[in-house]
């Protein structure tokens, strides 16, 4: 009898052990194993066209996979989904900007959209969309107040499914976020094709920006899952070669006899030593004039034209960005988050030969087709090139590691 009891007890014990065996290994390993990696289990990037991967005024999977948050997430070892747009894109990126209209990949029109990939991801980690200003990040496309209608509004549907960046991000319950917002609150001034370029009306007032940005941060706080973050300051958009300095045009007239550039294109104001505000000529206004003159038609560029961004307007833009960045830095400090001002790195880039080229460039750059605005800028003169996206990822990775005492591996 005793022997039987032992057998029964032994059998039951074995069975209980088998039953109690947990199968935790069935989970996909999620937490990055490097130092501080737990914070980066679920990473979400907020932003606009730069964060989305926009290059050459186009967006496609080939470009999206090169965007800095994708590179950063890969280094982090975090699963990262972006709203993949089927190649050649939506619209396809510009391959040659000096034609009218600019030539796009596969000679497709700017209205072409190859739609999203049919492999729809379960959620999005890169919730950035081209055209996003701070208001669009907060509001759905059917809530008030509304930002002015824009051609990029269609990305709200194509990339975010009609929801806001915050709404899509909340689905991911992020543990770490980066946010690069505010560029579109000021860049409208240089992209404005009306006779109002540089106008304060194209700029979100700093006080309004502060209110909206703080509302954005409050929303992030309400997630309850975010362990850390990094906020990126607004770029001094006046440095983009799309809005070339008037003195570049003035110099070009020496090479184009039929081009006359008035001296007012040399107007400038020294803000502080080494920092001078100069007249800016947006590409959409200046390039046709240069082309017309190069075609033999006598042409005059008068920088008092309202399409040109005057020195006071440039000063306003510069000052606005400084105020924006004060708000952003303050929000980061208040939460103990990291903050990166991208402008020093971009200014350093401007010092690298061939990295950022003014327009028009004379003598003509042999790389003018491949990199008409320099190797650091894509073919639209506004958005970072692939190498700059990678540089941004490296800067962010270094900043995060330093701020959080983490050990995110190098950008692959």
């Amino acid at each position, binding site marked *: 009898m005793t022997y039987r009891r032992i057998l029964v007890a032994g059998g*039951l014990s074995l*069975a209980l052990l088998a039953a109690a065996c947990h199968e935790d290994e069935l989970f996909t390993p*999620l937490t990055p194993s490097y130092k501080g990696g737990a914070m980066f289990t*679920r990473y979400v990037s907020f932003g606009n066209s730069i964060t989305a991967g926009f290059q050459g005024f186009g967006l496609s999977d080939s470009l999206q996979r090169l965007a800095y948050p994708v590179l950063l997430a890969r280094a982090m070892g975090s699963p990262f989904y972006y709203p993949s747009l089927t190649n050649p894109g939506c619209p396809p990126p510009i391959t040659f900007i000096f034609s009218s209209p600019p030539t796009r990949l596969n000679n497709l029109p700017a209205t072409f959209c190859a739609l999203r990939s049919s492999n*729809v991801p379960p*959620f999005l980690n890169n919730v950035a969309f081209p055209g996003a200003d701070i208001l669009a990040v907060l509001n759905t*496309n059917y809530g008030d107040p509304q930002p002015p209608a824009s051609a990029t509004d*269609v990305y709200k549907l194509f990339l975010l499914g*009609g929801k806001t960046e915050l709404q899509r991000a909340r689905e991911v319950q992020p543990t770490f976020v980066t946010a690069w917002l505010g560029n579109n609150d000021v860049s409208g001034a240089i992209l404005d094709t009306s006779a109002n370029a540089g106008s304060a009306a194209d700029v979100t007032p700093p006080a309004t920006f502060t209110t909206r940005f703080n509302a954005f941060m409050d929303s992030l706080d309400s997630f309850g899952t975010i362990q850390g973050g990094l906020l990126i300051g607004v770029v001094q958009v006046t440095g983009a070669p799309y809005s070339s300095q008037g003195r570049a045009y003035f110099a070009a007239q020496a090479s184009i006899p039929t081009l006359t550039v008035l001296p007012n294109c040399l107007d400038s104001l020294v803000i502080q030593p080494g920092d001078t505000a100069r007249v800016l000529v947006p590409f959409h206004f200046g390039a046709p004039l240069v082309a017309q003159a190069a075609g033999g038609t006598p042409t005059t560029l008068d920088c008092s034209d309202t399409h040109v961004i005057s020195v006071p307007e440039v000063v306003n833009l510069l000052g606005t960005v400084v105020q924006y960045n004060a708000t952003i830095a303050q929000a980061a400090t208040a939460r103990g988050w990291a903050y990166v001002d991208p402008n020093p790195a971009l200014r350093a880039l401007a010092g690298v030969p061939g990295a950022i080229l003014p327009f028009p460039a004379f003598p003509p750059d042999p790389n003018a087709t491949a990199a008409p605005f320099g190797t650091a800028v894509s073919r639209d003169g506004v958005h970072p090139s692939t190498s700059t996206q990678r540089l941004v990822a490296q800067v962010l990775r270094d900043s995060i590691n330093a701020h959080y005492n983490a050990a995110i591996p190098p950008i692959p």
Partner: protein
Amino acid sequence: MRRSVRYALVLFAGFPALLGAQGFGIYEQGTCSMGRAGTGVAAPCTDGSAIFFSPAGLAGLTGGRVTIGVTLLDVEGGFTDDILQHETRLDDPFLAIPQVYVAYGVTPKLGVGIGLFAPYGLQTRWPLSFDGRFSGYDNILRSVYVQPTVSYQVTPWLSLGGGLDVVFGKVELNQRLDLADAPVPTALGVPAGTLFGQFGIAPGTDFADTHLEASKTTVAGHFGALFKVNDRLSFGARFMTQAKFDYSGTASFTQVPTGLVVPADLSVGSLTVPAGCPIDALLTAPAASCNGIGLNLFNPSAGVFRSQPVTTTIKNPSQMALGVAYKVASGWTLLGDYQYTWWDSFNELDIVFPQDASGALSRKLFERYDGTSGFRFAAEWMKDAKWTFRGGYLYHGGAAPAETVTPLLPEGNRNEFTAGATVKLSRGLTADLAYQFIRQNDRRGRTREALFNQPATTGMNNGLYNFHAHLFGVSLGYAF
């Protein structure tokens, strides 16, 4: 990552899973046998449950037995997704599975009886926030067997028995449809197979609720043999045939508002959907806010999602059990059973919507279940004329392959422990109590269905299912 690409491709996805429930298959068809871990094909309980557990076991019965019982199931389970590590719990109600057995010994050699039991049945209910709602969020299966049985003692050591099962089957499936997975009608000028998701609609955008209900009565058979080597040792076997259901039912659809609005003028083929057009309006009748464009999907007479018949064929698989029982000294009996169920008969399933000319609803599902083995062991101790105690353990494998573990049946290998007792309340009246704990191994699975007419792969698995259950059995028997 790619999922289904037709409107209701997953409409019947759960049926084989519902039936394929080695785990949800209910073997607890008698309180006495439940306490014995389901053993007894070689030595059935005397409560009449031999009608299910050992049809040959009615032979030799003296007098009559009436037993009424119920098994209560408290099911606990959930799904933890890989990325968010968020667990969604099953929202199952407390289930009650009834049994009724009437048996009578006509002669010392001839026994007859009739039993009512439900060897297949489940209800899986998930909250509507669960991603698996697109596979099914409230699914019910009922298969009630009524089995008249005859048993005859051919020789003193061999009895044979058999019965005819009249099986009343009913299924109900409630499911959400995801607009991201739905195809844009080619009438808009888009290439066939273009999904709303390719216009950016986010996964998890509910736009329709489906309700499907079907019932069918069919017939099966159940046979058994009991071989008594001597007074102590006996062997038994039983075989229940497959029950085939040619289900015919009705599918109905209700629109679920998405609340989305087209944010900018949108070129779709040759048409332009204007900014401000509500997507919910776009899916229904032509509306002025959408430039007169409307897809009429829910038109009650012509829409793809009108109420309509749906058919499919499902088979309850055959099952076999072999057992041994050995009476040792001091009132102890040891029992062991082996059970095999031919779940591999669930390989493919054709879902047909005969009135859907678009072909968007009908589909073929690949289930590819495996046959399963179960091993049951038990010991029973008759303490005295009033009290009998029993306990047992069983293990069985899962029927669903690794790529078919879904919200409808997140099953896997199981270890189960049982205990029970019989008490004689009066001369003819007995009561049985039993408890069973089911502990299923955690198992990776998925929340979504596979690409249209394509087999699923384990690459679609996106989390971990866990499951356990507490079962309580109680019955009253009367001998006359």
